[in-house]
């Protein structure tokens, strides 16, 4: 099902939004990703991931008050929706299931 598939970067963004709750917005997400993963995605990439996720229904957003440091622009704060939660949970359980199925022997020679 294409509409609900989560890409790796999208999953990361979704998780970070959860971590930052309730203050997740574009730039904060970028910084958190930088802090946690040492990756530095372009701000444009974050924005497009956010709008993709919103279109898929995994995120909802509302506008906060304007602040000075944003040149009078309002922040758009994101939250995870129920179906967003379902999507990351699905990914997580899929991963766990797969983990559990790996025989211990597989790690033996590492």
């Amino acid at each position, binding site marked *: 099902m294409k509409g609900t598939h989560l890409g790796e970067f999208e999953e990361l963004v979704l998780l970070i939004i959860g971590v930052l709750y309730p203050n997740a*917005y*574009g730039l904060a997400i970028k910084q958190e990703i930088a802090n946690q993963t040492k990756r530095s995605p372009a701000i*444009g990439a974050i*924005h497009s991931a956010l709008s993709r996720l919103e279109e898929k229904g995994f995120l909802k957003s509302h506008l906060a008050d304007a602040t000075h*440091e*944003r*040149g009078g622009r309002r922040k*758009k704060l994101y939250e995870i929706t129920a179906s967003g939660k379902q999507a990351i949970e699905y990914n997580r359980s899929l991963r766990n299931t797969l983990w559990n199925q790996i025989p211990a022997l597989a790690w033996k020679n590492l």
Partner: protein
Amino acid sequence: MKKYSPPKWALSFLRFFYKERYVEQIEGDLFEIFLRDGSTRKAKRQFGWNTIRFFRLRYLKGIDDYEQLTTLAMIKNYLKVAIRTLIKQKSYTAINISGLAVAIASTLLISMYILHERSYDNFYPDIERMYRVANGDNGRWTPTLLAQTIQAEIPQVEAATKVNGLMESFLEAGNQGILQDGGLWVDENFLSVFDIELLKGSKEYALSEPDHMILTETIAAKFFPDKEAMNEIIEIDGDPFKVVGIVSDPPKNTHIPYKYIASNPVDPEQKYYWSGNNTFTYAKLKPTARRGDVSIMLADLYEKKVGPDYIAYTGHESFEALVKEYPNRNFAFTLIPVIDIHLKKSHFTLGTQGDAESILIFSLIALFILIIACINYINLSTARSAVRSKEVGIRKSLGSQKKNIILQFITESTLITFISVILAGLLAVLSIKLFNQLTQRAFDVVDLITPGNILVLIVLLVFVGPLAGSYPAYVMSRFNPIDALKGGITKSGKATLRNILVAFQFATSVFLITVTLVIYLQVEYLKSQDIGIDINNTLVVNNGIQLESKYDVLKGQLEQIPSVELVSKASHVPFYGFPDYGYKVPDGSKSFSPNNAFLAPGVEKMLNMELLDGRFFRKDFIPDTASIIVNEALVKELGWEDAVGRKLRRDNIDYTIIGLVKDFNFASLKREVEPLIIRYGWDAYEIGIYHQRFILVQFSSKNLRKVYEEVEEQWSQISGGYPFEARFLDETFQLQFEAERRFGMIFTTFSGMAIFIALLGLFALTTFILQKRFKEIAVRKVMGASVPSLIRMIIKDFTKLVLAGSILGIGGSFYWLDDWLQEYSTRIELSWYLLTIPIAIILIITWIVVSTKSYKAAVANPSKALKDE
């Protein structure tokens, strides 16, 4: 450290390209980054770079972002308001649309006409090397042997053909017989010179025999509606011809509009004279040939071939002596490009003549009408602007921008143009018949669809509409809303320019009225001239030759009809065209070519010719075959004191002058009476068959139709089925004014249009001036001015304009008419009363329009005008 702010271009870039709902987020984040980086120069660069990195399909505006709400809704709103305004101001809209529609319709028709006229003969693939061979500079007729001689003797000539026509003949096939025009008589080279392909039949074989003919599709279908025309026999004036080919109808823009082609080769048995000019010659040069070289060879050929025959006839010692005596004549054959025939050398055409001058007149008229209509449009709209200044004021205070107001007015003008274009199309289609009459062409509705016309329409719709609307739109959009609401804005545009334009319109109207009037008066004057003979009550029957000896039977029968007084015959009849024959004074001192006609005894009585000296011919008096009667003009030309008893020589026969007639007009009232020799018309047809080409019937009855029918009945009984063709002599006389009549019609039509459009301009100006002086009129009225005095005040201004324009128009028309009248030997004088009539007409029309308009303003309640402040 210096604080930088984010680059402006980047912000505009964002707003321009990116969807509105994303812009705020993107900008906010970029600002935060910028601040975090310390508002440095580097941060500023970074800001720009980041902006560009957002350039992703997802954020870009799509079609639906542009057609969002505002624009689409505004266009809808512009249209709605435009339609409402047009409906509200009905008279203004009607005037505007009708003015433009008339102008566009005439432009469409005229551009179609010009395109057609300029396209003549351009469909021949080898047109640039096709020439007509002229005799001298302008002689249409050439010797019969010319075509075959130049083909044989001038190597640069690829092919040459001799052509005669177009002729009207009696065509008979099966039991169907009709008088058919458009007969072209040619030799076997015709098809290759003109590159004509046959639809059926072989090009090589088609004109190889003297009894072959080719039909156009139309004629083939006419004569053989339900069978194959090929190999059928058609009798042309009694001689059988075999149909050996079918061609498609020639295009409308050909100077040879033939309907059938008959073979007419040079007869090897017959002796032809180089001094006799009986045929037209066309030549196609080889692609490598130079026109100049061929011209020199043609001049040599003339001297070598025509020279000896010519001096034998004129009696000069040598060709050089002949050339010396007539230094103004070009004794040579010359080349006329076929492409030039229709417009530049139109007397060479075999179809209807074109006229380069009328093309120029037409183009100027079209241009003039179109420009005036556009100017009128602007005048009318600016005149309306004062009325609409409040609307503009309200729109502006409610937040309309300059752009919106301009667009509103442009929408209105485009809508008007659009409706006008549709109406103009209808008008053009409806008037195409009248236009055909004016121009003597056969245009169809489909001919209106030319690339030129499509271009005209596109230009009108795309440019003229918006352009005509843009000036008033610009003026009005600049109104200060406060002034506009106060009603204080009345000035718009310069009045001087408007005055000049309106005066110019009057000038044109007066010009056209004067020209129309003078043409009319001149034609009436010509018609009222005493032509010297009685042309009433005479019916002229054509094709008398067909009767042969049965003429006597017909004559006897006709004389039985009570209303018929006299029947006679003639080789030529006044106003049908007389040929000229060469004569010499017997002592050889002078040779000349007077007009020549053979009249049977009785014609002189019928036409009531006045004898000044001597006598007329006697009936059945054989010695009179060597007698001639001459007119005064001939005596004058020869410088004689008297004429009777003198002799003139032709073909070695001396003719004795037995009578002198008073000059009478027999050709055209445009020219002086020319020298004329009347010869004895034989009664016996065996000798004088050509003397009975026309049968003249004089009658006393007033019932012309009955006379015509009675003569026709006798003809049909005796002629053996040959069609009856006759016309009253006075009717033929009137026909010579056909060109003037058409010319007059063209001018009447266009004066009507020009006056119509000028009236629109007048209307606009009146409206404008009244609005401008609205308050002034009110104040005057309050102070006690009467309504008539107010109207007089307004009229005074216009009278000045009319007079100024009229002087210009009269001057122009007199200058032109003086030139035009020079063509006529008898003509009217351009006198003072001609000055007054057009001016009076225009003045009266102006007064009517202006006073009705100003009456309304003058009787209005002054408090209405004054309470505004």
